C-alpha cells in the first residue's frame, strides 16, 4: 500500500543505520523486517508480554509500542548486541548453563530486561529480580531457573 516514508537514523548495537521506512512502523518491525535483527521476538505485538523488549539508552522498553522516529538520538541495544564479539554476556552463559532457556522464545527479552537490572543494580535480591522481570512472560520455565540465572550472572560479574 502507498504509505508515507521517512528517513530514519538509528543507533543500534553501537552502529549507525540509515533507513527509509513507513512512518507508522514500530521499532519491533523496523528491527526485524528492515534491519534483519530477528533476535528480537514478538508474542503479542500490543505491549502485553515483554517478549519484544530491547534497551533504549539502557532502559528496557517494549519495541512493539515504540515508534523508531522517537528513538533516533538514542542508543538501542538488541539481543544481537549483548555479547562482546563471540564472547557471550554472563547472562547468556548463565541462562544456557542453568536451563533458563527452554523454547528460548522469551529469552532475548528476558536477558535484556535482566541486563538493564544488573547494569543498574549489580547485586539484586530475589524480590528485586522478580519485580524487574514481572513484565516478561515465560510459559516454559516457571521462571525459577531464570531467577537463578540472573543471580549467577550477577555473581560472575562481580
Amino acid at each position, binding site marked *: 500500500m502507498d504509505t508515507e516514508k521517512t528517513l530514519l537514523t538509528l543507533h543500534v548495537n553501537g552502529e549507525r543505520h540509515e533507513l527509509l521506512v513507513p512512518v507508522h512502523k514500530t521499532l519491533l518491525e523496523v528491527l526485524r*523486517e528492515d534491519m*534483519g*535483527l530477528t533476535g528480537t521476538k514478538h508474542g503479542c505485538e500490543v505491549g502485553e508480554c515483554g517478549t519484544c523488549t530491547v534497551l533504549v539508552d539502557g532502559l528496557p522498553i517494549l519495541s512493539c509500542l515504540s515508534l523508531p522516529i522517537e528513538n533516533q538520538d538514542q542508543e538501542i541495544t538488541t539481543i544481537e548486541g549483548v555479547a562482546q564479539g563471540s564472547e557471550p554476556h554472563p547472562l547468556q552463559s548463565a541462562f544456557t548453563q542453568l536451563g533458563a532457556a527452554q523454547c528460548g522464545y522469551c529469552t*532475548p527479552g528476558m536477558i535484556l530486561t535482566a541486563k538493564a537490572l544488573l547494569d543498574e543494580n549489580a547485586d539484586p535480591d530475589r524480590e528485586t*529480580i*522478580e519485580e524487574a522481570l*514481572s513484565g516478561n512472560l515465560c510459559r516454559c520455565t516457571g521462571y525459577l531457573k531464570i*531467577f537463578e540465572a540472573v543471580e549467577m550472572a550477577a555473581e560472575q560479574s562481580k
Partner: protein
Amino acid sequence: MAQAQEYAHIGKPRPKVDAMNKSMGITKFTDDIELPRMAFGKLLRSTQAHAKIKNIDVSEAEKLPGVYKVITGHILPIQFGIMPTAEDEHAMATKKVRYVGDPVAAVAAVDEETAEAACELIKVEYEPIDPIFSIEKAVTTSMDAEHRIHEDFGFGGNIHKIVAMEFGDVDGAFEQADFIDEGVYFFEGNTHLPMEQHSAIAHYDGTGKLTMWSATQTPHYVHRALSKVLELPPNKVRIIAPPTGGGFGGKDDPFSHEIAACKLSMLIGRPVKFTLTREEVFYTHRGRHPVLMWCKTGWKNDGTLMGMHFKSFLDGGAHGSYGPASTYYTGALQTVTCKVPAYKFEGVRAFTNKPPCGPKRGHGTPQPRFAVEIVFDKVAERLGIDPIDLRTKNMIDSHSLTVNWLQITTCGLQECLDKVGEASDFKNKHNKLPHGKGVGVAVGSYICGAGLPIYWNDLPHSEVQLQVDRMGTVTAFSGAIDIGQGSDTVLATIVAEVLGLDPSEIQLVTADTDLTPIDLGSYSSRVTMMMGNAAKESAENMRELMLAGVAEHLKVPAERLEMKGGHVWDTENPSEKMTFRKAAELAETHKGLLGSVGSYRPPRKKGSYKGSGVGPSPAYSYSACVAQVDVDPETAEIKVEKIWMAHDIGECINETLVLGQVEGSVYMGLGEALMEEYPYRDKLGTHKIPSMLDYKSPTTKDMPPVETILVKGHEARGPFGAKEVGQGPLLPIMPAIANAVYDAVGVRIDELPITAEKILAAMEQKEKDGPGRIGPDKIPDIEFPPAIKVEPPDEWKGKLSSLE
C-alpha cells in the same frame, strides 16, 4: 542407582545443546525466516458463531493494489483433521461457519497491512443459525440436520463421540461397599498460550515441489494432511519444523493458515508467510477441554476403594481435533494410581460453537485427576484417615495390570508420596495449621508416549539414522521436533553416550520430512521414550559397525575394543588409543560409508476392547505433590506459599532438562488452578479475553518456591531407564491446591479456576450454615449407550469377594 555413575553424560545436569544460540538471539524460529519475493497472508475470520454462508464477495479485495490473490473455501474442498475418524475441517469454511474466528477467506499480498486491508474489503453474507455454547445444551438438544453444528459427523445431535465401558461389576462393588461418595466437578477450559504465535511459510517452486516451514509439533501428520488436501504426492511436499517457541499441545493439529499458505504459494508462484496475531492464536486454540464430571466411588470403612463409576462431559468446541482420543483419556488413567477393582466409564464429547478444543499438556487426564484426587481428600476426612495413608492403602502395584488392562511397569508413586510428605512435613501440618493456612496432597500419573499412533498402522513410531564420515563427523537424523522440551539435547546425549563422544560433537538434522526419518511428533510425552530408544539402537548399531571395521584393521576380535572418551582402543593394548576420527577413517576404509538406523515401536497393548487404544503406554510416570496455601480469612485472597513435587523419572537423561520440565509443569498447573480460563459472551459466543493481558497467566510475582524431588529407578523399557517428565508433574497441582484450600478455610472449590471470589462465596455460604462449596451439582440428563462389558484381567477376578 549405581548404574548411572558409569555414564559419561546420562543423568547429569548439562546445558541444552541449543540454549546458547537461543540466549544469543541466533536461533531462527519460523517467523524469523524471510525468503526473496515473499508475500504475506491473512485469514478473514467469521464474526458469527453459527451461520450459513450465503455469499462471499471478494471482488473489491481483489482490486486492492498489492493484493496477489484472494481464495475462499471452495478451492480447497477436501476435508482434513488430525484423527482419521474426525476429519471435519476445511481450510476455510464453505457452507457455514461454526465459531467466531472460523476462517472464511485468505489473502496473499505484498505486505501484512495490505492483506489485512483486503480482508476488510471482503463481504460475507451470513444467515445466522441458533448457536450452541454449553455442553448441557449440546448434549440434550435434538435438532434437524440443518441446525446441527456438523450435519455429517458424530453420533446425532451435536454429540461428537459417546462411549461407555465397564470393567468388572461396578454395581456389585457398590453393594459391597460400606459407603458411597458421589460428587460433580468442573474443570474450566484454558489454553496453551505458547509465547511464539503460530507461523508458516510455504514455497512452491518451479519443479512443483512444495516446501513449508511451520511452527508445528507434528511435522509428519501435517505432511500427511497437506498431501491429502492439496492433492500432491507426498514426495512433492516437504515439511520443515524450525525450533518451535513453545507448544504444550497447541501446535499438534494441521491448521488452516498452513494450508492457505501452501495453496496461495501454488497459485501465485511466490513464497507466502502467515503469522497469526495473538488474537488469532486464541481462536485457533485446541486447548484444554472444559469437562463436567460426575464421580461415584464405593469404599470400605477401612479405606479400601471398591469401585468407581465416572462420567465425563467434554465441551469440544467446533471441531473434532483429537476429540475421540480426548474423550477416552478422560476415562483411561483413573486406574493407574490406585487399585480399582471395578470401574465404569461413560464419556461424551459434544460440538459447541466455540474455538475447537484439543490436547493440552496432560491431554484429557488433568480433568478427571482433579476430580479423583478431591474424592480421595473427602473420603480421607470422612474416615479420619490421613490423605497420604488413604492413597498408600490403595496404592497400585508395580508390574501389574489395571482392571482396564493397562500394563503398569515400574511405579515409584509410593516413594514419591512418602518423600513429598516428609519434605513438606505434611502430617504435622494437615488439619493442624492456623485458620487460613493449609496443605493439600494429590498424586498423578501420565503416559510415556501413546501406545498407538494417530492413524492406524503397525509401523515404528520413531526412527533415527546416523552417519559417520571419515572426518569423524557424526550426524544424527531424526524427525523429532524440539519445542523447548529438549528433544535435540536428548538425541545428542544418547548418541554421544553410546559413541563415547561429547553431546556438543553430534550434528543434528531434525524435523525435515525430506531429510529425516519419521518421528510422530512432540506430543503425549513420547519423545524421550520413543526417539530415545530409536537413537540408542541406532547408535549401538553404529558402534558395532565401527568397531567391526577397526577390528578388521587391527586384526583383533571386535569384542576386545572399547569406544569411550573420544577414543577407540584394544583393551588388551590400552596404551595405543586411536582418536574417534581415526577409528571412523579405518572403519570407512573397511566397511564403506558408515550408516546405521534404529527404530522404536511400543509394546503391543494388552486390552482388546473398543477404546483400548487410548491409555496404553510403554510405561507410566508418577508424581506426588503437596501444596501449601495461605487464604486470607477476610478477603479470600489466595497465595500459594510452596509446592513440593516428587516425580518418578526412572533415570534422567539430562537432569537440567528434567528439573526444568517439573518446574514448568508446576507453573502451568498453578495457572490452571488459580487463574486461567476461557470465557465467552453468552449470546454472541465471542471470546471475552483474546489477549495476553486479559487472559491471566502467572507472572514472576506469582511463582512460589518449588522443591523438586526426583525419585529414581530404572524403567527397563525406557532408554537408559528413563521415563517421561514433560506432562505428568502438572496433574496433581490443581487438586493439591483445591485440597489445601479446604484444609485452610474448610470450603470445597470443586471447579477450576479456584479464585478468591469463589472461595469467598463458599466461606459466606458456610457462615450461613450452607454447604461451603462452589461447584456444579448436576450433570445433563442423557442416556449413555449400554456399556461394553470388558472381562478384567485374571488377577482382578474374584478380587471384590476377597475384599469382603
